């Protein structure tokens, strides 16, 4: 079966007055129908930028995008603006990190959902409101009929994110992009929202790309994961395999810095020494080498290309792949 999303050799560069930022560097992945991919990595590694490329949401005149982003066979990067706006919200839809900032503060939640539905389906305002009500019910917002006329600031954080999910799913998209949708929520609400997302994904049969820096969240929601560092995917594979036996030293370091069962409570978490590199040039060698304990002189020359079509791969040339 053809994948719903195919990203091939994606490069995203932001042109600024003080030079360029090479935010995403040669990223390739694909996504099958109904599958969930977690893009895992720390702040500034390019995971959100990669996600936004699927809808071409970057500021137009400052961004240079190369490569291919195929959604249902159509190249998003080559779409005319009319086709692009028809695809946005209909085929591919997005849940943002901070729903307070992603809702228009002066329109009611119900009207914003209805507006979106009316844009993509030829139905009346009344029917669109009815759909909005169904969606709010579906994401289990209590007394949904009353919440339809609420403004975003009149809702709690968890409720707002549910409403955001209702908005994103109102047109039954094929692909849902979730940009750290639980980061702004507190822990108990987080898990409820995650479970809700999984459940709705199953019901609607959609694919999902989930951006997160939280290893625990990735294990919870994803089938596969792609770990990103300094604008590149450095390791990719089934989520259980990657996170139980990581190949890349960065993934190993990331897991080492995460709370896990059976660890000593009084012990400080080991941190990876150093800081990620500035992306002011295109980095062709291993970007992690300066922080890596296993680095050798070979790591400082340009990395060989890897076959990204295999189910599991890593960019590290030292990784003991035979362990798998």
């Amino acid at each position, binding site marked *: 079966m053809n994948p719903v999303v195919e990203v091939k050799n994606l490069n995203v560069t932001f042109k600024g007055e003080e030079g360029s930022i090479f935010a995403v560097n040669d990223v390739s992945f694909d996504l099958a129908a109904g599958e969930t991919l977690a893009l895992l990595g720390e702040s500034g590694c390019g995971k959100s930028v990669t996600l936004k490329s699927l*809808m071409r*949401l970057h500021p137009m005149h400052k961004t240079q995008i190369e490569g291919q982003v195929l959604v249902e066979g159509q190249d998003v990067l080559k779409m005319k603006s009319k086709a692009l*706006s*028809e*695809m*946005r*919200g*209909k085929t591919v*839809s*997005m849940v*943002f990190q*901070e729903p307070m*900032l*992603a*809702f*228009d*503060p*002066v*329109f*009611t939640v119900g009207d914003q959902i209805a*507006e*979106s539905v009316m*844009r*993509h389906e030829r139905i009346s305002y009344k029917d669109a409101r009815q759909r909005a009500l169904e969606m709010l019910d579906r994401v289990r917002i209590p007394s949904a009929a009353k919440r339809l006329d609420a*403004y975003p*600031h009149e809702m709690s954080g968890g409720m707002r994110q549910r409403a955001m999910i209702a*908005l994103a799913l109102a047109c039954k998209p094929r692909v849902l992009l979730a940009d750290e949708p639980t980061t702004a929520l507190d822990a108990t609400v987080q898990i409820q929202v995650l479970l809700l997302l999984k459940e709705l994904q199953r019901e609607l049969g959609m694919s999902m790309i989930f951006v997160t820096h939280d290893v625990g969240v990735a294990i919870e929601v994803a089938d596969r994961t792609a770990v990103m560092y300094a604008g590149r995917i450095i390791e990719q594979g089934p989520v259980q395999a990657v996170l139980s036996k990581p190949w890349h030293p960065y993934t190993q370091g990331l897991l080492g810095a995460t709370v896990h069962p059976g660890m000593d409570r009084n012990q400080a978490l080991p941190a990876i020494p150093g800081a990620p590199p500035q992306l002011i040039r295109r980095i062709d060698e291993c970007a992690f080498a300066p922080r890596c304990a296993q680095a050798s002189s070979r790591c400082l020359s340009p990395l060989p290309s890897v076959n990204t079509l295999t189910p599991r791969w890593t960019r590290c040339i030292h990784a003991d792949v035979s362990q798998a």
Partner: protein
Amino acid sequence: MFAFIIRRFLFAIPIALAVAAVCFSLVHLAPGDPLTAVIPADAPAEVVIAIKEAYGMDRPLIVQFGSWIQRAVQGDLGVSVATGRPVMGDIGLALSNTLTLAFASAFIGFSGGILLGALAAFYNGTWVDKVATAVAITGVSIPHYWLGLLLVIIFSVQLDWLPSMGAGPGGSSNWRWDWAHLQHLVLPAVTMCFIPMGIVTRTVRATVSEILNSEFVVALQARGLRASRITLHVAKNAAPTVLSVMGLQFGYLLGGSILVETVFSWPGTGYLLNTAIFQRDIPLLQGIILVLAMFFVALNLLVDVLQTLMDPRIKRG
């Protein structure tokens, strides 16, 4: 909502009273006796006292203020010292002329300012932005009486396209909506529109570019909404801020047109105020200031109410 309007209206009453008190006392704080202008310098002392009694000027200030307010509320602002006519009638006529001029200026200035400001924000950093910003800065920097004189020299004296004096043909002071009167309106209205246009441009530019940079605009794009629909969202978000600035500017147009009305001999409140000052016509002076100040208070009230209606984030409690 209705309760909010009522309450906001009640709040306006003490403000109006305070404004009236300032208007009243300003005249008495100024050097010189209000009656020096009408009494001949060599008048005998008994005559001076008699006149003072006739105008009620022998009573304590607070009592004078009380009776002035009492009559003002009933629409009686006294009798002009210079002409002997009731002040209210003259002010009413002048006010309608000033309002005509203010509406015309506001219409040109606000629509121009919104257009320029929105263009500048949408094309932030490009030459469109730079031109709009330059126009805005020039607009607020040029003294309007000087601009008025310049326009008169160009369009009345040299080109002879438009009249430069009065509100209508033959120095008529009764405004009518016909072509002959409209011609008289053009130059003063254009002269006055530049300051509000500049200020509205700057406000719209700042507000709209801030909104365009906020995440929800990206989120609206991510929903696939059409550009016209996104513009509507941006406009509704910008409206409360822009509206409050426009309200203030309209107030300034009403009160600040003294110089422009004088340059164009426009028979409005500014022109009348100028006359009243030179003739030391105290009742007329007080009346005009009071009426203009009340307009300002009413305008602020209106803007507040509109703002609350438009922005759900403002608590109505």
